[in-house]
């Protein structure tokens, strides 16, 4: 890892966006020199638990020899052929890129690092060059001249380096005239690498934890119960009310699933408190589950198989508990899986019912097939129908801005619901510049399983565009909290904000809901969910 000294803004800001003269077809990478930009390899225990190939091999990216199986090229090329037959996306995306370069400066990693291979077009070319060599006549005959390359160990190492520098945020796809989605290509290449035993620990271990205990953190059932009870105690201190939280309750109407970080991590925790208050206030008949105690799905960052293996628990648990439908908490990639993959992977769920809000009677027709509703949709509906009372002035000590997480914005189209909620919960809401929000939003730089410490330099670099936008509203509008609806964001943005835009805090949308919520029979609250005192009630001057 890079030393503290190096990780200073002025050092990271020496970025040159003009590529060096070295031909991109040269794959060599000096891993030693690039510490802070890549992740550690998967640990034995996790790989073994998941029956992944080559679990016992201990290799590090800095090694000369990655101890690959003898026929590794064959495995990868076979895998590639198979996936070309399975994914039209891959096939089409391999053939039609015109290298117009529109995507080039759209990637946060390129903006922050200036490394030309972080241009989405070149990231895809890393695979496309192999595809050309194997599947096109010109590539076979003319080789490098037409951008074709042999699959060699340096190429594989290059894949490892660059495809674990893509957060699958899909921002490039928005600008591509053909909609080429680098996330799709990254997913395929990561799958191919996994087939020869190349994974990173920060992804493999959460998957293995989740597969075993139901959540990424590996919290066992009793730990889960403890933390929920702890949260209820905390809440009692703030709002002076008893909040009961049902767990594994059969026959509940709704199964509630949220990322496991909500139970343990800060600032996720305040969002959890917000949910608990909201559900108590409206008297929702719901249950948590220990078996499906994770909304997130790190399988998405590994392979389609892993997505399915982890995701199966959701419906299985809904069926076991006999709930009518499922409500999902604030998370980013969790919603990509629930929105774009779950129903296709798991098939239709006859035992569940069309989601209908028991409070407002609204039928969520947009979830007619998956039977799974986003908490923002649910809460926005409550507010619209006047079922909860909110006092936005209780958030007056916050000047929030909202960070659209990549997946809800570009893979789901969930843009206005959270804004509607925030406008009803806060008086001081301010937007970041328009090229950095909604479908143009910038990734935190740590998504897709890259939110670890060993690659902090690359994370901070990737976070530059987001950090710059936050700093802009901090300076222009005195923004002091960055709200988001993604567990990875909540985990990684604090470091980013500390680095690029201190002292902006990070929080969740339902934390603001909890702050503003007027509960029936409540006593006067002294502090918000963080224990921060409310702003003085007197008519505050508008800045």
């Amino acid at each position: 890892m890079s030393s503290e000294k190096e990780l200073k803004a002025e050092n990271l800001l020496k970025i040159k966006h003009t590529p060096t003269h070295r031909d991109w077809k040269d794959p060599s990478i000096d891993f030693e020199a690039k510490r802070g930009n890549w992740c550690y390899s998967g640990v034995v225990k996790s790989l073994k638990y998941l029956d992944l190939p080559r679990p016992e091999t201990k290799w590090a990216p800095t090694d000369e020899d990655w101890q690959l199986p003898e026929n590794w090229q064959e495995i990868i090329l076979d895998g590639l052929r198979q996936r070309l037959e399975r994914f039209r996306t891959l096939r089409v995306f391999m053939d039609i890129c015109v290298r117009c370069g529109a995507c080039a400066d759209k990637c946060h990693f390129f903006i922050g690092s200036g490394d030309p291979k972080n241009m989405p077009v070149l990231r895809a070319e890393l695979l496309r060059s192999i595809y050309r060599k194997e599947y096109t006549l010109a590539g076979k005959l003319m080789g490098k001249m037409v951008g074709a390359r042999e699959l060699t160990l340096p190429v594989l190492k290059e894949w490892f380096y660059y495809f674990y520098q893509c957060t699958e945020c899909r921002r490039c796809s928005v600008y591509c005239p053909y909609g080429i989605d680098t996330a799709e290509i990254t997913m395929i290449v990561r799958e191919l690498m996994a087939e020869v035993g190349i994974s990173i620990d920060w992804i493999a271990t959460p998957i293995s934890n989740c597969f075993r205990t139901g959540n990424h953190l590996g919290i066992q059932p009793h730990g889960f119960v403890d933390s929920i009870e702890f949260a209820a105690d905390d809440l009692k201190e703030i709002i002076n009310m008893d909040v009961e939280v049902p767990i594994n309750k059969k026959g509940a109407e709704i199964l509630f699933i949220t990322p496991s970080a909500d139970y343990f991590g800060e600032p996720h925790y305040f969002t959890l408190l917000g949910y608990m208050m909201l559900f108590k206030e409206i008297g929702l008949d719901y249950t948590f589950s220990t078996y499906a105690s994770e909304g997130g799905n790190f399988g998405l960052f590994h392979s389609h198989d892993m997505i399915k293996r982890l995701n199966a628990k959701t419906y299985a648990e809904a069926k076991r508990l006999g709930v009518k439908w499922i409500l999902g908490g604030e998370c980013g990639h969790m919603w990509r899986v629930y929105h774009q993959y779950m129903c296709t992977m798991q098939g239709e769920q006859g035992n569940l019912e069309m989601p209908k809000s028991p409070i407002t009677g609204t039928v969520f027709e947009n979830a007619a097939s998956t039977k799974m509703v986003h908490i923002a949709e649910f809460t926005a509906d409550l507010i619209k129908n006047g079922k909860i009372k909110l006092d936005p002035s209780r958030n007056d000590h916050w000047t929030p801005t909202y960070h659209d997480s990549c997946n809800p914005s570009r893979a789901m189209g969930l843009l206005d619901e959270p804004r509607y909620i925030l406008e009803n919960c806060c008086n001081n809401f301010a937007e970041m510049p328009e090229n950095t929000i909604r479908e143009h939003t910038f990734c935190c730089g740590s998504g897709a399983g890259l939110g670890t410490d060993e690659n902090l330099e690359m994370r901070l670099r990737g976070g530059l565009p987001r950090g710059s936008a936050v700093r802009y509203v901090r300076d222009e509008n005195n923004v002091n909290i960055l709200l988001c609806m993604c567990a990875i964001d909540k985990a990684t943005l604090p470091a980013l904000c500390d680095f690029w835009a201190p002292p902006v805090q990070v929080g969740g949308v339902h934390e603001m809901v909890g702050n503003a919520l007027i509960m029936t029979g409540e006593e006067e609250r002294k502090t918000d969910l963080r224990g921060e005192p409310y702003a003085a009630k007197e008519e505050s001057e508008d800045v």
Partner: protein
Amino acid sequence: MIEKALQGGKAYWTLVIILLAIVGVGTLAYLKQFTEGLTVTGLSRDVSWGLYIAQFTFMVGVAASAVMVVLPYYIHNYKKFGKITILGEFLAIASCVMCMTFIFVDMGQPFRILNVFLHPSPNSLMFWDTVVLFGYLVLNLLISWTVLGAEKKGIAPPKWIKPIIIISIPWAVSIHTVTAFLYSGLAARPFWMTAVLAPRFLASAFSAGPALLIIFCLILRKYTKFDVGREPIQKLAVIVTYAMLINVFLILMEVFTAMYSGIPEHLDHFKYMFFGMVDAEGILHTNLVPWMWLSACLGVLSVILLVVPKFRMKEGLLALACIFVFFSLWIDKGMGMIVAGFTPNPSHGVFPYTPTFIESMITLGVWGLGALIVTVLYKVALTLRKQVDTNRYRA
């Protein structure tokens, strides 16, 4: 940035569609003129320029008037004009396009219009007018787009734009001066042959243009959330006042010279405008008379409203005064100026000119085009401003 013009509410799109319809009507009318020739207009052998060229002349003035906001803002650093400057520049862009379109529809051989550049003739003021007008359009596009773009990005405008802004100021004066030279150098037309024509054009431009801008600002305040503030409007009102006074003064100079000297060649045109004239057959022609008196009355009324500070300070009355100024000058320049120059003709024949329906529809279409461009550009400016401002204001 232009994409902002593609996202808008119902009112915006309704306006755009109405304006497009007007442009469509104008286009159809033009197609008729295109196939049948300029015979569909009221123009004749004797009055060979009419509504189109008159409107062109008037709009050059509106275009040039942008300098009245650009100069205080960029040169004298009068920051209060910050919000209005872009409106002025966009108005100039629309006016330039209108000017070019008016010239285009006036051409007998529109397909050969590029001959002006293929066979340039530096002796001809029309050649220079084309060049300066085109240059002014490019300058305004460049300046407004760059400055607005920088504002959108939240950074200071690039340094290279400053000299271009400075160039644009004399350039604005030049477009209307050259337009005046177009007329004032013609020995054949004594009415135009006056050294005071260019100054008069500038004075009328600097009152009509800012008057229109004030009207726009008041409309924007009423129908959108965009408020340029009271002070810049009052400042503009003062500019309108002085320019209008100078304009009236210069007109009186002209009247004096013609009347006192009594030279028929100069006097006759004023007679025709204000009292009408008898043709060879003994018929009295008074086409312009009601219009010119209306223009004079509106001019006097507007001067009263503008000069008395108590009236000027009231925005309702100010709006009225601006409307009066605009219409008074529109009649004066957009009808009287050109037609009266041709009547009576050099042989003292009186052949009155009245625009035809087709001609009026084409003119309306060009106005519609100008209004459309203003609408679209203002939409862009307002949307970008709103994004920059909401952030600023809500904090």
